[in-house]
C-alpha cells in the first residue's frame, strides 16, 4: 500500500518536472550558443494554446504537439531575427517576447476555453508497467515524459561528444574567435534559438494536452521563468538541469500534499515554496561559485561581423 503511494508520488513528481525539463533543455542549448532568450514563458504559453487549439480542431494529439512546437518556433524565429541579425538587445527583446506570447496565447485560446480533451495516452506494457514501484515510473508515462528524457540524453551527448556541439559551444564562448576561424556564428545561433523555441512550444503543449488537458489563460504559471532559472542552477549542463527540474517538481508535489494535509499554513505560502526553493538554490549556488561563473562567456552579447 505505502509502496503504491510512493510510486504515485514519484510519478507525479516526474510529470511536474517534465515541462521544466523540456523548456530548460531548449533554453540551455540557446544559451550555450551565447543567446539569452527571456521569452521562454511567452513561447511556452503560446505553445500550450496553439497545441490545444490544433488538437481540438484536428482531433489529433500528435498534430497538437506539432502545432505547439510550430508556435514556439515561429515566436523564436521572430526573436532570432531581431537579436541575431538586427542585433537588438536580447534582454529587452526577450521580455517583449514573453508579453507578446502571453497576449497571443489569449487570442489563440479564446475560442477554446472550457473545452476538454482526453489526456494523451500513457505507455502500457503488460507485466513491465505493473512492476512494483518502478512500473508506472519507467513504463507507464506519456510521450512527453519520454521525450524529455530523450532530450536530456541527446543534448548531453551532442554538447560534449559531437563536432556540431563543440562548434556551438565555441560560438557561445567567444564569438569573435569563432568568426575569425570561419564558423558561421549567426547561423548557428539562429538554429540554437529555433531549437529553444521548439522545446518551449513542446513544453507548453504538454501542459495543455497531457498535464491538465484543457486550455486556461496563464496556465503556464511562471514555469518558463523557472526553466530559465534552472539553466543557471544547472551551470548549463543538461543532466544537472534534469536533476534541478526533479527538485522543483518535488517541491510542487510536496506543497500539494502539504495543502491537502491542512497543516494550518496559508495555502498561498505553500504554493510559493517551489519558487522560494528556486531562489534559495540559485543564491546558494552563486555564493559557492563566487570566484566566477561557468556561464558561456559571450552570453547575451550581440555579434555583428565586419565584411
Amino acid at each position, binding site marked *: 500500500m505505502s509502496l503504491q503511494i510512493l510510486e504515485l508520488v514519484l510519478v507525479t513528481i516526474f510529470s511536474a518536472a517534465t515541462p521544466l525539463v523540456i523548456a530548460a533543455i531548449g533554453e540551455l542549448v540557446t544559451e550555450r550558443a551565447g543567446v539569452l532568450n527571456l521569452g521562454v514563458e511567452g513561447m511556452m504559453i503560446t505553445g500550450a494554446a496553439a497545441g490545444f487549439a490544433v488538437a481540438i480542431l484536428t482531433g489529433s494529439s500528435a498534430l497538437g504537439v506539432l502545432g505547439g512546437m510550430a508556435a514556439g518556433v515561429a515566436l523564436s524565429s521572430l526573436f532570432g531575427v531581431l537579436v541575431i541579425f538586427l542585433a537588438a538587445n536580447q534582454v529587452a527583446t526577450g521580455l517583449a517576447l514573453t508579453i507578446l506570447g502571453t497576449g497571443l496565447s489569449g487570442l489563440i485560446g479564446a475560442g477554446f476555453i472550457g473545452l476538454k480533451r482526453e489526456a494523451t495516452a500513457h505507455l502500457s506494457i503488460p507485466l513491465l508497467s505493473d512492476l512494483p514501484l518502478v512500473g508506472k515510473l519507467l513504463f507507464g508515462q506519456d510521450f512527453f515524459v519520454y521525450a524529455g528524457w530523450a532530450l536530456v540524453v541527446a543534448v548531453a551527448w551532442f554538447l560534449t561528444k559531437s563536432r556540431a556541439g*563543440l562548434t556551438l559551444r565555441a560560438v557561445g*564562448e567567444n564569438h569573435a574567435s569563432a568568426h575569425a*576561424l*570561419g*564558423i558561421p556564428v549567426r547561423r548557428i545561433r539562429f538554429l540554437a534559438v529555433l531549437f529553444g523555441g521548439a522545446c518551449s512550444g513542446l513544453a507548453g503543449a504538454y501542459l495543455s494536452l497531457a498535464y491538465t488537458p484543457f486550455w486556461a489563460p496563464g496556465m503556464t504559471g511562471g514555469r518558463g521563468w523557472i526553466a530559465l532559472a534552472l539553466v543557471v542552477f544547472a551551470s548549463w549542463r543538461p543532466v544537472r538541469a534534469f536533476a534541478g527540474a526533479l527538485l522543483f517538481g518535488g517541491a510542487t508535489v510536496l506543497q500539494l500534499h502539504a495543502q491537502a494535509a491542512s497543516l494550518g499554513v496559508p495555502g498561498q505560502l505553500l504554493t510559493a515554496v517551489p519558487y522560494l526553493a528556486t531562489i534559495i538554490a540559485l543564491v546558494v549556488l552563486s555564493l559557492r561559485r563566487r570566484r*566566477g*561563473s*561557468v556561464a558561456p562567456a559571450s552570453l547575451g552579447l550581440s555579434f555583428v561581423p565586419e*565584411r
Partner: protein
Amino acid sequence: MTSPTPAGAPALIAMRGIVKRFGEFTANAGIDLDIVAGEAHALLGENGAGKSTLVKILYGLLEPTEGEIRLDGRPICFEDPEAARAAGIGMVFQHFSLFDNLTVAENIALVLPRGEKLAGLGARIEAVTKRYGLKLEANRPVWTLSAGERQRIEIARCLLQDPKLIVLDEPTSVLTPQEAETLFATLDVLRAEGRAILYISHRLEEVRRLCNRATVLRAGRVVATCDPREQSARALAAMMVGSHIVDVRAKPADAAGPERLRVEQLSLPAEDMHGVCLVDVSMQVRAGEVFGLAGIAGNGQDELFAALSGERLAAQSGAVRIDGISVGRDNITLRRQYGAAFVPEERNGHAAAPDFTLSQNVILSRHATGGVTSGAFVDLPAARALARDIIKDFDVRASGADPAARTLSGGNLQKFLVGREISRNPSVLVLNQPTWGVDASASAAIRQLLIDLARQGSAVLVISQDLDELFEISDRMAVIHDGRVSQALIARNTTREEIGLLMGGADMTKAIHAH
C-alpha cells in the same frame, strides 16, 4: 637562412591591386604583395597602415573591394577562412582566437575541415607537436595555459592542415624573450620544409633576424620592399613612419630623491575565476625616477593598477602610501588629492568615455583636484580652456575645437590622457601599458614626457609588456609574475635575458642572487 628571393621565382601567393574600403575609409589602397615558397616575408607598418586588413583578406575573413589574389598562378577567391585553410593558408592570430573554457584538443578540432573524424585526433596532435617541438597537453583547458602555450596551440592547429603559407600576426608581443626564441626555432624548421611565412611585427630587430624580405605599408599603400637584413632597424622604422623618429633623450642617471610611492605587502584576492591574486607585493618608487614593471599580460598588472589607483581597496591602509600618507583604504578621488595620478590601460571606456568630448573627459579625472568645478556645478568654460591647453601643450591632433574622445586616433587620445594627468604636476604617476597600440612617433613623445616629469621630481611607475620601452626609460625595473613582484633591479645593470627569465616565472630570489 636562404638568400633573398630571386626576382624570377614563381610566387606562391600573388596579391594584385588589393583595395579595401570601409565606408569612407580606405584601409588598403591598391596593395601588391608576392610571397614565394620557403621565404620568411615581413609585413611592416604602423598601426592603421593596413596590415591586419590585408591578411584578413588573404585569410578569407574580409572581402576585397577590388583586386585579385592568385595562388600558384590561379586566381582564387576565398569565401571564408575554411576555404583559405583548405587552399593551404594558415593563420596564427595576434589576439589568440582560442576558447578559454575548451580544452587544447577541442580548440584544435574546431578548425578541422568538415566531415573529418575526431577519432584519432589526439594521436595526430601528438605527432605534429613532437615533430616541431611544440609542448602541449591535449586535455588541459586553455585558461590554465600561458601565452606561449596558447600560441603553440594556434601553431599546432595551423600545422595539422599542412599549410603552404603561415601568417603570424605580432606573434611575439605576448611572449618572453625565451619563448620567442623557441618560436623562431620552430619557424626556421617550417621554412626549411619549404613553407612560406608571412610575419607581421613591429619589433624590427626580430624581423631583421628572421626575415629575408620585407614589404613596408604606410596608409594603405606599399612604400618600400627591401631585404631587412641589409637595413638598420632605424632605417626600417623611418620607412614605416615616413619620417625620422626622434630619439628619447635620456635623463641624467640616478637623480633619485625621497620615496614618494610605497607599496608594502599588498595582497588582493582574485576577482573572478580567471583572475590573478596579488601576493605580498612590495616596491618603492622615488622622486626623480621612472620605475618600470615588466611582465606578460595577465600576471596581475590590472589588479595591481586597480589597487594603486583605488579602484580596489587593500585590506590594510598602510599597504599603499603616497608621500608617506597611508591611502590603501582611500578611494581614487582622495588619492588624486594627495597628488597621485593614474592612466589606465584601456583608453576608450576606462581612461576616457568615448562619446564624451575632450573637455568632459578632462572633468572626469580633474574634478578631484579642482579648477573645473565650482560648488556642485561643473565649470564648462574652465574645462574647455584646460582641454585646449592640453591639446596645444601635448601636440594632440584632433579635429574641431572639442571633439568626442572616440574620434581621436589611439596615439593622439593617449597623448591627451597622459597630458591630462601630467599637466597638473602629479607627485606620483602610475601608467598601465602607456604606449600599447600607439604609433611610433606618439610613443616616443609619451616616453619623453614621462622622463621629463620624473626629472622634475615626480615618481613615475610604468607597467608595460614592452621590454624595449622599459629599458629605454626606466631607472629601476621589476617583474610581475603570477601576482608577485620581484625585487627591483637597476635597469642599466640588468639584461633582457634576466628580465625575460623572471617574466617566465624563474625563481625570483635565485635570479637576483645569481646577478
